[in-house]
Structures are given as C-alpha cells and as structure tokens.
C-alpha cells in the first residue's frame, strides 16, 4: 500500500476531486498548505510598502491506495491538476507499513 500526497493549486481542488471520484477513488484527506516554489508568491502592497507574500496557498491531498492503483490515481491527479504553467505542484508517493481502520480494526486492503 502506498500514500499518495499531492500538493496542488487550490483552484484545481474541485477538478481533482471530480476526477478522482470518476475513477472511484472517493476516499481521501486534504488540508490547506502554503508553498514556496518556482512560482513567485503573491505580490502584495500594504500601506505603501510592497512585498512578496512569498508563498502560494495550496491544497494538499493525501490518498492511501493499494499498490496496483498507485499509477491510475497519480495519473488522474496529475492530469486534473495540470495547467502547464509554473506552480502546478508535485505528487509524492511514499511507502506505508500498515493501515488500520479505526471502526473495524481491519488492516491494509480491507481497512479501506
């Protein structure tokens, strides 16, 4: 089993959600993050002084998937979150040892 973490543009969240649900990946967790990257942060002016917020507001999505759906899910996210302009974000795939369902106490595949 793998954990797929995607850092995407906040504005692409709805598109990714829809795309995931179309391939039947309805379970995931997400939260707001901020990112430094090649894309410059927001340029901001406040009371006469300009500055760069530095970061961009982004959304992080975490999905735990079985090994054989890793590629499908990560491809789906990538396509849905893609604009082609700098700042699209990254998908990171990390190993997991075990996943346990709190409700059923079942583990791994059967925990999903």
């Amino acid at each position, binding site marked *: 089993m793998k954990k797929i973490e995607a850092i995407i543009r906040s*504005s692409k969240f*709805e598109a990714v959600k829809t795309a995931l649900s179309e391939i039947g990946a309805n379970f995931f967790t997400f939260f707001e993050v901020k990112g430094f990257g090649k894309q410059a942060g*927001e*340029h*901001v*002016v*406040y009371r006469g002084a*300009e500055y760069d*917020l530095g970061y961009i507001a982004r959304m992080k999505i975490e999905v735990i998937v079985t090994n054989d759906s890793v590629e499908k899910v990560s491809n789906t996210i990538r396509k849905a979150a893609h604009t082609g302009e700098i700042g699209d974000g990254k998908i990171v795939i990390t190993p997991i040892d075990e996943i346990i369902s709190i409700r059923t106490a079942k583990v791994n595949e059967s925990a999903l």
Partner: protein
Amino acid sequence: MEEATISQELFTINNLWVMIAAALVFIMHLGFACVEAGFVQKKNVVNILFKNTTIPAIGLLTYALMGFNLMYPGSDYAGGWFGFAGFGIGTDEAGLTSAYTDWGGYTYWTDFIFQGMFAATCATIVSGAVAERVKLIPFLIFTTLFVAIAYPITGMWKWGGGWLNELGFHDFAGSSLVHSVGGWGALAGAMLLGPRKGKYTENGVKPIPGHSMPLATIGVFLLWFGWYGFNGGSVLSADAPTVSLVFVTTSLGAAAGAITALFTAFFMFKSYDLSMVLNGILGGLVGITAGADVITPMESIIIGGIAGIIIPFAVVFFDKLKIDDPVGATSVHLVCGVWGTLAAGIFGEGKDVVAQLTGIAAIGVFSFAFAFIVFYILKLTTGIRVPDTEEERGLDITEHEMEAYKMF
C-alpha cells in the same frame, strides 16, 4: 418660498432630527458593507469593502457636483421629466432660515446632506449583486454615472415635484425611488456579467456560501438601525405623530419579515436558515418604506410579512433564471421594493394603485435601461468581468494585492 410659519424652536427641532436622520442613513453604508462582505467569499472581501467605502464618497461628491441640482431643479422642469439647476451647491441667507421650505423643516445644508446620504445607497445595492466577478474600475464608472445621473432623474419625477408627483404616485421614503432603482441596476449588472463560475452546474445550483455570518448579521442590524433615519427622516420634520407612526410601522414591518421568512424558508428548505431571516428583515424594511407614513401598524405587519414570504421564493426564482446575485440584492431591493410600492397603493388611504403601477413601471424601465446601457457599453469597451483566473484566485489579491484576513 412663503413666509416662515413656524417658530424658531420648531424649525431647530425639525432641522435637528433631519440631520440626525442623515447620520443614521450614513451608517446604513456600513450596514451594506458588512452584509455584502459577510455574504461573499473570503477571497473577495477587500474588494467589496473597497467598493462600499468608495461608493458613499463618490455619491456625496457627485451629489454635491450635480445630483442635488438634477433631483431638485426647483421650478426649472422640462415637463416634469428633467431639469437641472446648475453645478455645485451653495445657498444664501434664505436657505438657512425656516422660510427655506414650505413647511419650514430644515436648512438648505440639511436638505443637501440628508438627500446626499440617500443617493449613494442605490449604487451600493448594485455592488452586492455584481460582487466577486466585476472589474473594479468599470464598476466605479458605472457607480458614478448611476448616482450622478440616473438616480436623481427618477428621484426628481417624484420627490423633486415632477410628473409622478403630479400623478399622485406615493413613495414615502423610496421603496421605488431608492431600492428598486438600485435593484434594477443590480439586475442589469448581474445579467450582463453572468453567474460566478461554478454556481450553476448540471446538477443544479451549487451555493457559494458567504464567508462570515457574524459580519452579515452586524450589517443587517445596522441597516435596520439606519432605517429609522431613512424612514423617520423622510417625514422631513420631527412631527411627533407622523415620525412615531413611521417608527412603529418600520419596526413591525422588519419584525414580520423576519418571522415569515423564517417559516417560509423552513417549509421550503427544511432548515432554519439565518441568511433567509436576515434577508427577510431587509425585505420587510424595503417593503414598508413606500407607505410607512400612510398605513396602520397592523397593515405594516401584513406588508412586511408578505415581503418575508416573497424573499425565499424570489431567491429561488432568480437562481432558476441563472441570475447570480451573491447577496440577494435583487430579491430584497427590487422585488420587495416593487411590492412595497404596490402595497402603499393597496393599503394607503386615498392612494391609487394605478399611479403606483405607473410609477413602478416608469422607474423600472428608465433605471434598468440606463444601467443596462452603461454596463453594456463598458462591457464592449473596458470589459466588466475579471478573467477566470482572477475570479478563481480572488479579487483581493488580483485587484488589490491585499488579503482581508491575516489569521496566521
């Protein structure tokens, strides 16, 4: 102008009340700012505050420049349809005495400031309906023209002594002259702009909830508060029986609107919907405004109550038409403004329903056409809608390079 017929004391009292009423109407601008800011998304809050802060400033300045003299041209009419007494404001000694007006109510300056505070409200109404997607500068251009030209012209028809006044049209404090004028502008703007992205999907209406209910609630209370000046001051004197009746009808109209909107929304949506109760209060207030001086308290409960029932239906109706109005300005100000004007004809003693309908139609046609044409020209020239990417990222960052909240 005739001889002063009242004592200096009464003159001073009347004048004092109309000035205080002007200050109360002023605070309605904060009410609008809070309601609209509360009902938009967090990413567009600076933008709506910017507009609502700028609009009263533009309104007051243009009203001083020309609006006041368009709306009150004196005897200098073109058949009761149009008149203009020249640019700028100023007066002589007479304008400061109890001889200034027939009823000796107030000074020229008080007249100006009370009317000036009204003027900007109609533009503020528009800003709510076009929120979250309109371009800032074209909107401010629209505002300037709407306040400086359109509002004073229809205002003159009635309050300036023009043809609607001759006709017996009754609009005490502006259900039509202020609220539905603003509402028609809101409708024109919302239609030409189109809905916010993602609002109307194949699966139906996807609500885009406002970012702060406390802010919206503060706004509604402040509007109700200011309405005591809006309606109470429209008596144009401190005359005890009339002003106190107006206080009662205004209060009961608002209260009835709240309660009927609560129940109507509950039966329609099976939910105790705060946003509907808030809009119900505003609907009740708008509804009561045309006839607040000529109806009984019991009638004010009926009129406000019907306005409260109308609100949820109107909101659903505009959504059916895919006319996207983030704060419900069209439902509140246009629909309830029309209802209130009609109600003044139905319930007001000696009032004429036909005259009311004539007024509603004439004001509607003119205001809608004016707003539509201005927005349309702006659409063809500067454009009126921000690009999709700006709408997605929010107008605060893209138009103002500023965030409304810095919570971290």
